[in-house]
């Protein structure tokens, strides 16, 4: 019995650390609607700063002062980030801020190694909380007890802050309806900045408090960020109490789960999230989001098919690309094939995300399923390349059909997180089912037949498939189905009112996107000759998001450009420098500032403006667009 109590308390201590970080993320999202990918980076910076300060100043005051000071310093950094970077892009398309914070995260990972060195750092133990308390023969670290108390204290302080102060009232109001708050004359700028500062402070505090039990290292951010997102979503976005309950739930399930299934930790949080979201689509304590008030159809230039001239340009570009094997060597051709594969992958996500308005955070699942499909067919069944290429993506289709059915019942960030959960579940199956998938050692020797084996042939194959896919998806976008899909994106209520079966259309779109992603994965398997669980990992899903956002989420051809720019740059930087993350991150941040609508989006806007001023088009429409923005 004492053991179970001890295990419960241990779970509570883990929950407290998780809650600190999660509450910060929840507050930031609730008010600013920013999916703050950099939250883990601030957590890590907090730990590093606390390490330095507590090493410099000894004693109890030095330690606790160092922890708080570290959190305050990092909060100040957060304020700087908010004012310099995020303020510029609040009016960008949704999720664009994700791109900015993603770039920051990349930079921070390299920066901490530059500043603090590559070694794991062992922080001091907390003065006064070094030992353990004996509980009927079970040792419970006193620091755990401290954390167990601290969690509810922080919850209480936040509750008072939100319920009893004017600032808290404004924050709650903004969480509920920030347009209305703005309309009532509240200075949103400073509200956002202060909220961001508080959120970052909590993240950094959570990181700083880890130093007595963790090793400070440059991978801390990724370790925590996904888990924290999951906790926030399980609890319900913007709900502090929800975050607390979810943190306790997840930590306790883990603490007791490992007694029965020692391998459960790898997937537990995602299983819980999937179940919670299917049963309660807005998390445990979340409220259904009010229907979006803005009409996205007006904020962008209406989509139109390419004009004849533009088609000719595109064809010419394709012809130039197809002529590449005449001048380039094998390496460039293989890189070209890889870029073509990622163009396919990016346009498939774009179809779901921009056309359907369903941003998936787990799109790599279908890419990976396609890759594994090919690996099974080619390696186990020994099918020829062309057959495997055609049938392999069917595994992606199947996965998309099953998961998509559940996912499209949700919308917004909840949809995104459910897709993430599914992707992680698929990933962990590939990772754990060693006898079939080879585990993380993957499946090797998936090479194409002779006719496609040379780099130039494979390049033409990938390029051809990519061109075909882009054309087909464009045709779909401008087909009646595409218009229906865009209608469901712009206003689910109105489209339902005119008789569109919203869920079925979204499900179909999900399946199309998943199949195309599977096709990309199938090509990728043959390109690399091997398949790994990595092929369906979070980082690949994030890469796809970045490509679409970089190109411009509100454009039709954005993902093609985004994929080419991001992938080519990524490959080149990784080859040229060990600080590729720093440079790539800086580049992403610069792009975000310079092209607040993505590369293609901003270029289109500039061209549009040029055309407008030349022809002085209907002033009424222009003014409406500006208002909507």
């Amino acid at each position, binding site marked *: 019995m004492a053991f179970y109590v001890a295990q419960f308390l241990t779970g509570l201590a883990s929950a407290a650390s998780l809650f600190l970080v999660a509450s910060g993320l929840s507050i930031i999202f609730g008010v600013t609607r920013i999916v703050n990918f950099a939250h883990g980076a601030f957590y890590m910076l907090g730990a590093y700063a606390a390490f330095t300060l507590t090493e410099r100043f000894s004693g109890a005051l030095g330690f606790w002062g160092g922890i708080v000071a570290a959190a305050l310093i990092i909060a100040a950094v957060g304020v700087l980030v908010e004012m310099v970077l995020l303020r510029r892009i609040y009016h960008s398309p949704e999720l664009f801020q994700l791109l900015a914070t993603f770039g920051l995260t990349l930079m921070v990972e390299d920066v901490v190694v530059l500043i603090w060195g590559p070694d794991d750092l062992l922080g001091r133990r907390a003065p006064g909380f070094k030992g353990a308390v004996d509980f009927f023969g079970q040792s419970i670290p006193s620091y755990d007890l401290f954390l167990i108390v601290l969690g509810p204290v922080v919850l209480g302080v936040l509750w008072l802050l939100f319920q009893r102060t004017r600032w808290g009232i404004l924050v709650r109001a903004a969480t509920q309806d920030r347009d209305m708050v703005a309309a009532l004359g509240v200075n949103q700028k400073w509200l956002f900045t202060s909220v961001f500062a508080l959120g970052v402070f909590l993240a950094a505090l959570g990181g700083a408090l880890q130093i007595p039990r963790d090793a400070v290292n*440059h991978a801390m951010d990724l370790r925590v960020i996904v888990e924290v997102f999951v906790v926030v979503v399980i609890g319900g976005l913007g709900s502090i109490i929800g975050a607390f309950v979810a943190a306790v739930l997840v930590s306790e399930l883990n603490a007791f789960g490992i007694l029965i299934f020692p391998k459960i*930790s790898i997937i537990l949080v995602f299983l819980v999230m999937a179940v919670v979201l299917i049963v309660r689509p807005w998390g445990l304590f979340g409220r259904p989001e009010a229907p979006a008030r803005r009409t996205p159809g007006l904020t962008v230039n209406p989509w139109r098919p390419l004009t004849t001239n533009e088609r000719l340009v595109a064809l010419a570009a394709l012809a130039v690309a197809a002529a590449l094997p005449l001048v380039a*060597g094998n390496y460039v051709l293989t890189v070209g094939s890889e870029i073509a594969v990622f163009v396919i992958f990016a346009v498939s996500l774009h179809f779901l995300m921009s056309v359907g308005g369903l941003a998936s955070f787990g799109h790599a699942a279908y890419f990976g399923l396609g890759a594994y499909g090919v690996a099974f067919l080619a390696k186990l069944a020994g099918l020829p390349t062309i057959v495997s290429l055609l049938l392999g993506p069917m595994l992606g289709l199947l996965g998309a059909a099953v998961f998509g059915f559940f996912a499209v019942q949700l919308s917004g960030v909840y949809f995104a997180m459910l897709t993430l959960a599914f992707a992680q579940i698929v990933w962990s199956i590939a990772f754990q089912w060693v006898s079939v998938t080879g585990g993380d050692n993957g499946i090797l020797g998936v090479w194409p037949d002779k006719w496609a084996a040379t780099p130039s042939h494979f390049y033409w194959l990938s390029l051809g498939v990519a061109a075909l896919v882009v054309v087909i998806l*464009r045709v779909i976008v401008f087909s009646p189905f595409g218009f229906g899909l865009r209608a469901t994106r712009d206003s689910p209520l109105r489209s339902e009112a005119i008789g569109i079966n919203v869920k079925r259309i979204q499900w179909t779109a999900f399946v199309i996107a998943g199949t195309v992603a599977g096709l990309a994965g199938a090509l990728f398997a043959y390109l690399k000759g091997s398949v*790994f669980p990595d*092929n369906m990992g979070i980082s690949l899903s994030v890469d796809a998001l970045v490509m679409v956002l970089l190109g411009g989420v509100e454009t039709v051809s954005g993902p093609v450009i985004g*994929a080419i720019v991001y992938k080519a740059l990524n490959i080149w930087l*990784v*080859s040229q420098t060990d600080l590729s993350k720093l440079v790539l991150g800086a580049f992403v941040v610069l792009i975000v500032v310079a092209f607040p609508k993505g590369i293609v989006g901003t270029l289109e806007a500039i061209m549009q403006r040029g055309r407008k001023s030349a022809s002085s088009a209907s002033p009424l429409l222009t003014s409406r667009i500006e208002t909507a923005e």
Partner: protein
Amino acid sequence: MRGYFAGAGLMVAVATVAGSAMAQSVIKIGEINSYSLLPAFTEPYRKGWQLAVEEINAAGGINGKKLVVISKDDGGKPADAQTAANELVSSENVAMLAGTFLSNIGLAVSDFANQKKVFFLAAEPLTDAITWSKGNRYTFRLRPSNYMQAAMLVEEAAKLPAKRWATIAPNYEYGQSAVSVFKKLMSEKRPDIQWVDEQWPPQGKIDAGPVVQAVAAANPEAILNVTFGADLVKLVREGNTRGLFKDRKVVSFLTGEPEYLDPLKDETPEGWIVTGYPWYSIKTPEHEAFLKAYQAKYNDYPRLGSIVGYQTIKSAAAILAKANSTDPEKLIAATEGLSVPSPFGEITFRKIDHQSTLGAFVGKTALKAGKGLMVDSVYRRGSDYLPSDAEIEKMRPKD
């Protein structure tokens, strides 16, 4: 669609940058490792091979040709490692590939090498598969494998009186195969042993408190640990606080390597039986020469990564010198059975499975002046801890 234009432009730009011609008087080795993902290991590793390159070229290069190592980062992703391997082979025309840390990346590159018929000297990946079940004729491996390290530890562990054993290992291939080999060899030697608990925390994400508590609840007499890096630090801290290691024997993979032992500082648990690299107590002339050269160049002490990096390039140079050619078939012929000196004494690349006989030090952890050390360490030659040739031939696919 308009994108292809920009794309083609970029590709042409890449082509012109990459298409530099290879000078006649130079031999290139292409090196790949997870520099950005695992800097704690790869920084000393890089220093190690840079020292080797310097020494080789100071001594006149390889048969009069200057040795150049072109190094690429794989970011910890198998797919990126293959891109890098491709660049090294296709654009840089390297004579051979070398390096890699993670097992899946080592396997990906070895498969690439097999497909493209390129010589590959795997430096670090520990998986048994790379020389056995997924071995191929183009791939050789330097470091003692999972099996070899397990066999070395089992030799010590079997002497312990403990009968109830628990295991803690990261939940991925390395941890899984380390545990399964250890269990198998241990049960062969000691049929009386019981395995009372196993914990599989996700790599890099251990929730140490519950894990320690769960292991303690099973009340084992001895524990096998396979975690390393930040996970190890957390495990040790929780274990120390909760008294998990009190009166229990612990056998631990890799913990004696400075990369993993040094961060534990004054929390280093005492008396763990570990494999590792006690650079401070190896008094052989070969090692002293290496240590002196390393410390003179970097003003820092070597980690195990330094040895691996140094020896990888030294071995590669010996192979290239003996083959006197960059033809992969000649390189393979030269490597099979080749003996080269190393800081740990002479090692041989076996013909049967392309594994080197580099060994490891087995010893006990100790705490002195707030720092972790390995004491009573003995060098175990790799050749003594390999299965019989018949067993290997059963596992390894025919070329």
